[in-house]
């Protein structure tokens, strides 16, 4: 008799929603993804009770990793409170009895995120799972998957680099804003999911394991901790993160917490005036907590 018959039989769902066979498939793929940094390991993606494109790839990773003593944080574009984040969090709470959820980056052991990596550096005790819509950075230059696999295997990224070359020719800089192609451990180039350029350096030599799940394309890949992650660039045209300086050259601050070293979202008021606020809501709250004693009342 195998494990499958010994799961919580009285529950409507198996713990973690997925059956144990599906978890094993995902788990084996995760281990190979970690062992071959940046390589997209194919796996058999299961149907989930939500449309693909709503983070099913990331969710399958989370559900295969999660245990009853887990503390989970779910973020969507930096926010813990968007509809998407709330729904995913509810789904995890419902299908994983015993698991606690949090919005605090400091407290969680497992983060599922879409489009952002938290500002607070992650620790060795944490794992972050990023949802990926398009896993293969080569798809823009090569339509055939068989050919792309060979190019990845040989680490032949010349055609991708030509795209960057053409970008500089046309615009004097590399204009890719999200999904910046990043080379892992000197071999595979990954699509790091639609995180801003701001977050790409966080992948390099991170204390935490970063996992990527693409549900529609059925691929899992990983950047292990303490691994070199280099955004593709030329030696004389280096990679740059977003510039948040105003016309006078001063670094813009978050209108809510005053932070001057976080990734900012821009809001345009009806009057046309622009305000800026931390994209990472938990980070913003933390900054506010720290300045509160000084200012007495939050703004």
């Amino acid at each position, binding site marked *: 008799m*195998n494990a499958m018959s010994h799961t919580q039989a009285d529950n409507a769902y198996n713990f973690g929603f997925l059956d144990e066979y599906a978890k094993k*498939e995902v788990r084996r793929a995760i281990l190979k993804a970690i*062992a*071959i*940094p940046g*390589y997209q390991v194919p796996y058999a993606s299961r149907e989930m009770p939500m449309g693909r494109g709503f983070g099913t790839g990331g969710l399958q990773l989370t559900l295969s990793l999660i245990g009853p003593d887990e503390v989970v944080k779910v973020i969507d574009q930096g926010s813990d409170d968007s509809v998407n984040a709330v729904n995913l969090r509810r789904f995890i709470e419902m299908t994983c009895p015993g698991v606690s959820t949090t919005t605090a980056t400091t407290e969680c052991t497992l983060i599922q995120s879409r489009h952002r990596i938290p500002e607070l550096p992650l620790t060795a005790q944490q794992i972050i799972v990023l949802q990926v819509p398009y896993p293969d950075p080569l798809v823009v230059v090569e339509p055939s998957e068989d050919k792309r696999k060979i190019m990845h295997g040989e680490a032949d990224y010349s055609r991708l680099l030509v795209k960057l070359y053409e970008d500089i020719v046309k615009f004097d800089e590399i204009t890719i804003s999200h999904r910046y192609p990043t080379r892992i451990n000197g071999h595979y180039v990954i699509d790091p999911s639609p995180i801003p350029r701001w977050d790409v350096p966080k992948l390099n030599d991170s204390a935490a394991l970063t996992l990527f799940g693409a549900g529609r394309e059925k691929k899992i890949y990983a950047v292990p*901790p*303490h*691994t*070199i992650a280099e955004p593709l660039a030329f030696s004389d045209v280096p990679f740059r993160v977003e510039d948040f300086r105003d016309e006078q050259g001063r670094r813009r601050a978050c209108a809510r917490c005053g932070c001057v070293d976080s990734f900012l979202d821009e809001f345009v008021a009806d009057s046309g005036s622009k305000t800026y606020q931390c994209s990472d809501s938990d980070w913003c709250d933390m900054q506010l907590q720290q300045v509160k004693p000084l200012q007495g009342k939050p703004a």
Partner: protein
Amino acid sequence: MNVERIWQADVQQRVFRELVEAFSRPGDIREIGDCTNGADAQRAVLATLMDGEMTLADPHGQIAAADWPLLQAKPGATESARYIVADGRRAPDFQPLLGSLESPEFGATVLVEIDCVGEGALTLELAGPGVDGKRTLCLAGLHPDWLARRADWVGGFPLGVDLLLSDARRLVALPRTTRIRISGEAL
């Protein structure tokens, strides 16, 4: 009926998380004896990862006959199996799958049982992804041929094999990307 802990889903989840840690941090020793209730570590790993989809080779007869039906894995030859269990005290006398340029994940995972993980006369210095700078690993009961054979197997990245060494209670992983030196000598 009393079912052994290692066949239960919650234990397998915990063992899996230890495997994630082990492969993420090569050379980091993971203790799993407590959660598996003292079951042999190599068995616990097999119970966690095997099902009917997988091929498993057992060239040194490590697996008890009664475990095969529970594991459900298809027995395979060492040169074609996705997973191999081996006795590390013996010299590796087989050629595992190394995968291909297009599909390096077909490179085998080799579970190697040795006398002791964490202490022993053999001292390895590790570097590579997952290792912050350098890390030292001591082992007892690993036949010296293993490191030379592994160096051949992992010479052509992304092709290679991923090793998981275990003793009775502890695990340590040496994925294909880990660079190993013995007492100052490169391998």
